[in-house]
């Protein structure tokens, strides 16, 4: 499509159908091409481009407002469920985090409006507790337990190995947002120390040599679903 574009636009006049199908990159190429050929961009073409861009912007706006209204509806639902309870903020935040995997900024703002609580207070609570997150989690979560029992049985090695395998430190997400790596205090499975949680599945008696296998399994599954 991209290669066909320059020939598709004759120097005299234009075909709107072609234009609407361009992505931004090829639009720019096209404009450059036209400018080289004519020394200027013909007015009718530039007007057509403006029109198309506005249509696109309008569509984006619509999607945006639709998103906002779903956010609003979700927040309203959560707030409604806990409205008459005293001290409901933490429970609402739990509900939100369960839904989104983290607490998005716009949701926190909406919640502030809905509950009549200052945004600063909401952020005070979110940042105080380890459990609440402000960043979206990765598609796959790898959690290493660093409770005392796990520590004694070699969780330090597991942490190092996971760091090496994923190339990120704890609390971070890989750049492709595929893996999120977290350290927790204790998952209460001290009988199977050292323990890890890989995508919600607890693995006990983990050896550092197992970690590469876990990651490979996840990657393989992803390949299969593609």
């Amino acid at each position, binding site marked *: 499509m991209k290669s066909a574009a320059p020939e598709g636009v004759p120097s005299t006049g234009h075909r709107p159908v072609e234009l609407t199908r361009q992505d931004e990159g090829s639009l720019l190429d096209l404009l450059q091409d036209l400018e080289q050929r004519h020394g200027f961009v013909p007015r009718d073409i530039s007007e057509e481009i403006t029109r198309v861009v506005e249509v696109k912007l309008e569509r984006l706006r619509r999607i945006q407002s639709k998103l906002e209204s779903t956010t609003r509806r979700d927040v309203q639902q959560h707030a409604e469920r806990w409205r008459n*309870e*005293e*001290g*409901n*903020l*933490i*429970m609402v*935040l*739990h509900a939100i985090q369960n839904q989104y995997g983290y607490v998005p900024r716009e949701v926190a703002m909406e919640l502030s409006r809905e509950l009549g609580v200052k945004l600063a207070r909401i952020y*005070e*609570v979110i940042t*105080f*507790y*380890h*459990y*609440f997150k402000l960043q979206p989690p990765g598609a796959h979560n790898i959690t290493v337990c*660093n*409770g*005392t*029992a796990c*520590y*004694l*049985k*070699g969780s*330090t*090695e597991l*942490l*190092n*190995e996971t*760091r*090496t395998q994923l190339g990120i430190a704890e609390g971070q997400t890989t750049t492709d947002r595929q893996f999120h790596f977290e350290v*927790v*205090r*204790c*998952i*209460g*499975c*001290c*009988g*199977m*120390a*050292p*323990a890890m949680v890989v995508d919600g*599945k*607890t*693995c*006990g008696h983990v*050896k*550092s*040599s197992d970690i590469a296998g876990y990651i490979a399994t996840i990657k393989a599954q992803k390949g299969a679903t593609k």
Partner: protein
Amino acid sequence: MKLTRQDLEAIAAQPDVDPPEWIRVQLDTGGIAAGAESAFSALANARNERHLSFSLLRAGSIGYSFADPVVEVQSAGMPRVHYGQVSPEVAEAILDQHVVGRKLLDDHVIATRARSLEIGAPVTHVLVCDTGEGAGSKTEFFQFSFNEELKRRGLSDRVQVARALDIGIYDEGAVVQLLPSAVTYANVLAPDVARIVAESIENGRVLDDLLWKTPDKQVRVALRHCGNVDPGRIDDYIRRVGGYQGLRRALFDLTPEQVIAEMKTSALRGRGGAGFPTWMKWQLTRAQPAPQRYVICNGDEGDPGAFMDRSVLESDPHAVLEGMLIAGYAMGASKGYFYIRAEYPKAVERIERAIQEAREHGLLGEQILGSDFSFEAKIRLGAGAFVCGEETALIASIEGRRGSPSPRPPYPSVRGLWGMPTAINNVETLACVSAILEKGGERFSSFGTATSKGTKVFAVTGKVRNAQLVEVPMGTTLREIIYDICGGVLDERDIKAVQTGGPSGGVIPVQHLDTPVSYETLQQLGSIMGSGGMLVMDKTDSMVEVAKFYLKFCVDESCGKCAPCRIGGYQLLQILDRISRGRGSAEDLVQIKRICLAMQRASLCGLGQTASNPVLSTLRYFGEEYQAFIEGGPSYARKMSRAAAGGAGAAAAPPRAAAAPAAQPSSGGAEL
């Protein structure tokens, strides 16, 4: 269906009994993580395929974490046994061999701890396990010898010999248990086999010289139903194990004052660690005039390495709920909150279900069981802050604020949740309360020492052979807990110290292992009872690193409200870090003690006051390790961190070849 007093009385007179044949699968977080759910579905499928009629039941965990997943089997003509490490394949084998074939499976049986001294019934099965040196190398030999001897006497079709996974006695040579009576012989030698077969198996006579007479050291009060009751079915709790009878007794036979008096008789002290008498807490709350009072169940088990509360909440939620109802009745409270860590989703789910079922059965809400007492219970989730185990911080968290502690007094029993009198009880305390009201306070106080009565649950983990939950009477020694109940140290190494009380506790060195456990004795040793985490450390663990690990935890978890904790903890960590890199000086040790003292005296809440305990106690008992780091300098520190990395690797995976890629980051990781 709402229950009334009469219903409960009728049930007490005629409780349900188990169906004749059943298999209970222990589905708690630990068991599920080890694969209990696949074992459950394997059993369900195999049962349908083979058209068997036994009941497949769910239960919580009995506490044998080392053997997860665990199932318990009762089958006609067979002794009731626990099987451990039940993979789906083993589950099918249990059906084929145990249920259908009437034979015990080798290598998976966990022998009963309820050992008998008399052979009450003809022996049908024999369990053998070699517990001496060489970890079970002679087990097969003994199995063979028994089989040969039985064959010689023509008994081999009547008696089966099986190898046990765990027989509950350790370092006592070959151990033999005769089922179904559970007469147990220890230190059995090869020539004894013929005697056992001739005397005990053929003629039912007990051989007194071999008999293991020491009774089991555990007494289960808080854990009384764990592993035996379905946490998701209130009927199982009410109709089969006598649940809510303690509540019935409190509501109809006793006044609130009498309930508190009963608690006084039991001398139960708070199981969360501080050991404040529970009856006094209730009385103080009750004495406070107020329109509304609250009961809070503290299930914010933030202690890394402890899982007692999780296990009780998951395995026996109704016992805790019943305890809360009784507490509410005794102090005139009509609202209760369960504050549970969000990291324990299974516990939250089961308490939620317990509350819902209790409401449906008229055990929550208005006019409970037809009395004048009304009570509502709700759940609040923690969000991963260790300081929220502190009662004022916990209250702040329930109110939906950040969990900063506030100065006491006023104590929560005067001004707590939303300014109202509030009693905060630990999960285990409430589980004991329902038992005390059911069985009476005197029975409870018959266990324990003069000042610490009753029993205490410990989660024994770390470098211990059988990591598990144990419940022992107060006054049991650490050595008994670690060696007699949990089988000693992993890989038969030497024990160095035991850590109790988590980040607020201290280490107890090997020379004090014979100390009887109680609130006072542990405090004298520089540690605390805490909620009951007990970590065993062997010779390879560096105490400086352990102190640093706990201190780092407390520094991370400090809420930052008061300066001694926020600044003192950080400075302490800097000094420890310097020492562990071999760059410390002799003055550092003096400085450590000064900072620790300041933190203990001046911190606002328990977290800061106790954060220095791990440092002080390691310094007290293992001062020479600190000295070695200071005198040895950086080269010594590097050597130690290499040794630690190697030691940990060897402990985690003995057969693994030297892991080249892991070695390098490990030395860096030690500075974590």
